[in-house]
């Protein structure tokens, strides 16, 4: 229905319709800023474009569209991931104009970079070749370095940007090195071909190619930097702390999800057949990921306890959340992938909401220390209540979205209907234990807001757009908690479960 309209407008280009809109956004926002000299107009245009891109994506998703153009092929999976990125982009753009942390003079560059980064993300999820994926990831990464650096006259931001760029560059090198090795052994960079290579060598029991495995491990490490998996996580807290809060939100909810998307597209699609067959390649990759997942969630949660800066705490908590989502890669079943994708969505709303509140409070002159949040319940009852719900949702308290998605995710580690396999039950144990640990540091913030007395009792006023954005996140955190079917059907369709 609706998709027919879109098809009639874009014709053959429909699969890349979202990307076209994003590219337009990236190209025209500097121009508007330059000639219009007004950051409000730039903001309005950027917002409209991002909303249009999101609506186009939703229409295609709801109508179950699939198609391909040149090397880009679009299906439920890529449309769903694109929806996630569009949601993040729209929320970030929506609040950016009112945030005191973003530079108004550079609004054109700022929105162009946001669009560019999102374009990379959408491009990645629609690609099925190691090199095109690499190009998309680089587009996102380079835009992100600049985005972090855009918060000028702040030493922390510059430090964060430099650190981010250097570590990002290293990870890029590592990834390319890995890809070259894989190409050298298997003779292709196409993921379907590579999956065939893995299956064939598993099936015929041919010799294990160490070169191939080392290449794979290099790629895991390279992309592991992108999602801040332990032990490649050191940059994340500094970057999230240094960047403007909307940018931190963009990085934590958007580009990290792209990294996880890459994992799904490259490793899940490459090895799922081998795992089903019980092949050695599948086994090695599964256990590598299981160990990375266990360490990522544990280190993230344990270190978060010691943090006094709320942005750093949220950074560590999102490292831990990435660890939960990596369960998909250990279990390697379509059920787990669906559950993990659903968790990515709920994570967008709960972590995004928390970052929005931090950003809104910075606008109101409240610092980033947890001790600055003392007595917040009296000063801003709505913000305190919303923050409490976001944090509880992150900790997995029912009936909020975080609980429901974690329930599905951890259940998928225990087995599949009809068979509780038990192979990765230990991972489920570690994950749930980690949820218990995480409640400890979330509760600290709640305690500061509700029980401890603050020095000041003045009411806090925050920009209206922040309130609206927070309310939207809050609605989704509650609705996805009690009615997950809203999105879960799409998550399952993305992996052919329906």
């Amino acid at each position, binding site marked *: 229905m609706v998709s027919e309209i879109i098809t009639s407008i874009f014709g053959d280009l429909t699969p890349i319709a979202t990307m076209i809109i994003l590219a337009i956004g990236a190209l025209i926002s500097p121009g508007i800023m330059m000639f219009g000299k007004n950051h409000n107009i730039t903001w309005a245009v950027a917002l409209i474009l991002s909303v249009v891109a999101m609506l186009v994506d939703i229409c295609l998703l709801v109508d179950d569209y699939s198609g391909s153009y040149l090397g880009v092929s679009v299906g439920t999976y890529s449309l769903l991931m694109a929806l996630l990125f569009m949601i993040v982009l729209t929320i970030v753009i929506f609040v950016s104009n009112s945030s005191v942390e973003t530079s108004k003079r550079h609004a054109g560059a700022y929105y162009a970079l946001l669009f560019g980064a999102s374009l990379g993300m959408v491009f990645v999820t629609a690609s099925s070749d190691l090199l095109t994926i690499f190009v998309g990831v680089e587009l996102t990464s380079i835009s992100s370095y600049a985005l972090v650096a855009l918060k000028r006259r702040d030493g922390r931001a510059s430090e964060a940007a430099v650190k981010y760029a250097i570590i990002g560059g290293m990870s890029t090198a590592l990834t390319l090195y890995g890809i070259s090795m894989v190409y050298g052994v298997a003779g292709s960079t196409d993921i379907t071909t590579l999956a065939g290579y893995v299956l064939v060598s598993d099936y015929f029991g041919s010799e294990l190619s160490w070169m191939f495995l080392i290449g794979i491990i290099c790629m895991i490490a390279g992309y592991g930097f992108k999602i801040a998996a332990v032990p490649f996580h050191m940059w994340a807290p500094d970057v999230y702390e240094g960047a403007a809060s909307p940018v931190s939100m963009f990085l934590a909810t958007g580009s990290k999800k792209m990294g996880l998307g890459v994992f799904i597209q490259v490793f899940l699609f490459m090895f799922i057949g081998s795992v089903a067959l019980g092949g050695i390649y599948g086994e090695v990759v599964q256990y590598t990921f299981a160990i990375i997942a266990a360490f990522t969630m544990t280190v993230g949660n344990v270190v978060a306890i010691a943090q006094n800066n709320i942005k750093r705490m949220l950074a560590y908590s999102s490292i831990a959340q990435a660890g939960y989502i990596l369960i998909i890669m250990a279990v390697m079943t379509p*059920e787990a992938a*669906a559950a993990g994708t659903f968790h990515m969505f709920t994570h967008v709303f709960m972590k995004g909401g928390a970052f929005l509140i931090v950003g809104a409070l910075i606008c109101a002159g409240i610092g980033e220390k947890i001790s600055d949040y003392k007595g917040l*319940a*009296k000063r801003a*009852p709505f913000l305190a209540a919303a923050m409490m719900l976001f944090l*509880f949702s992150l900790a997995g*308290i*029912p*009936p909020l979205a975080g*609980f*429901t998605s974690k*329930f*599905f995710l*951890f*259940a*998928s580690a*225990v*087995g*599949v*209907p*009809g*068979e*509780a396999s038990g192979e990765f*039950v230990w991972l*489920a*144990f570690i994950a*749930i*234990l980690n*949820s*218990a640990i995480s*409640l*400890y540091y979330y*509760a600290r913030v709640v*305690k500061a807001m*509700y*029980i401890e007395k603050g020095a000041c009792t003045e009411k806090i006023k925050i920009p209206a757009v922040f309130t609206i954005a927070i309310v939207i996140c809050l609605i989704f955190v509650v609705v996805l908690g*009690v*009615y*997950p*079917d809203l999105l*879960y*059907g799409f998550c*399952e369709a993305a992996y052919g*479960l*329906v």
Partner: protein
Amino acid sequence: MSMILSSLIIVPLIGAILSLIMGGSRENYAKYVAIAFSAITLVIALLILFGVFGEFDSLSEGFEWIHNSSFIMNYALAIDGLSVLMVFLTALLCLLVNIFSLDEHRENNNYFYALIMAMEVGLMGVYLAADYFLFYIMWEVTLIPMYFMISWYGGPRRHYSAIKFFIYTHVASLVMLIGFFVIGYESVEPGAAVNFSFEAVKNGIASAALGVQSLIFALLFFGFMVKMPSVPFHTWLPDAHTEAPTEGSVLLAGVMLKMGSYGIIRICLEALPEAAAYWQWLIIAIALVSIIYGAYGCIAQTDLKKMVAFSSISHMGMVMLGIGCLSEAGLVFAVFQMFAHGLITAMLFMVCGMTGHKVGTREIPLLGGLAGRMPVYATFMMIAFMASLGLPGLVGFWGEFPVIFAFYEFILANDVIWMLLFCMLSLMLTAGYYLWAMQRTLFGPETTKIDLTKAHDVGHFEFAVLLVLSILVALFGVWPDAALQFLEPYAEGLVSMGVI
């Protein structure tokens, strides 16, 4: 769809939200809101109990809540002879606790009452749920308010106790959650979606191998036994009770511990009867150890509240013993003991909590001769202690002795007559520590170690609450059928299904 059972959850929920937003200048009204809503809940519970809405067995309600290719979760509520008593107890104690704390002035009063009401939501949900997913949600919902109640309103070591309570019970509940995953997955054919309703899982799991069943039983039983708590996973309880405010202790011991034994009966026993028979000796061993160890622990305590906490371990061990008999009588009186212990322990914690408030300390060696100065208080304390040690004519008697009779049948059937010694020992110890504590606290010369000039007797609200509880303790003591009439049909149902 009728909403009668849902109203038991919704009414306290509204109460919790209303109390929560009564901040600032309206803080003092929060308690009246809480009392009003818990009173409405109690009225609904009583109406259900007296069958105003028809036989309560037929009051089930629900709808399919979440449906995807792997899972079907239902919002399903049901009530039967087992849960109806627990629902009544929960509603009663929540109201009484709210009234009991009327005189107390604390900062952020509205949060305090919101926490109590939130706990009532969770407790009602646990006792009414007929779906694993809902059960687990509600189970967790009880945990969070209790954690905050201890860590915000507790005694000096509250942070340590709260986190210990939280870690113990949360880790236990996650083991239980894994058990739920396994029982769900094993109850269906490959490729089918797991239906998490109690009924569907029960029917599906019956065909599973005994090995799988007993593994699931172990996972779930562990989760429940930490909550009860049973030795050796009991150490969180004395700490939590010592530091929790009186109201928290009452709800914790009065109804939250029962969630553990309720879960064992509702899930372990009903869904996995063969595994229960397989583990029977272990259950009985854990029960006996808990009974004796708890009683010994009591003797060593100097803090009144800590002593009562240990006595809870011992008495909940008695519940476990009744369940472990796997006989009709054992089960009926185990549940009766849950009910009786709920009433008695509420009184005990109120009285002991008051000691701290009125006299300034709960340390038994510092106390003495309080009866002269606080006669009403002393009377209630005696009633509570006597009821707890099982004096005939009070409700505790019907909880303890019939369980031992049921256990005697087990002893005869298995020819292990020496086990009777443990029961004797436990009765002796219980009588011993209570009488000894009473003697040291209430009687003898008045203590000079602390300043008693400011000590005053019970307040009006406290008196009313304790009076109601004493009347109930006596009423069910002389007329246990009032509660047993609900339990017997339930137990007979289990017998006819071949569960016990």
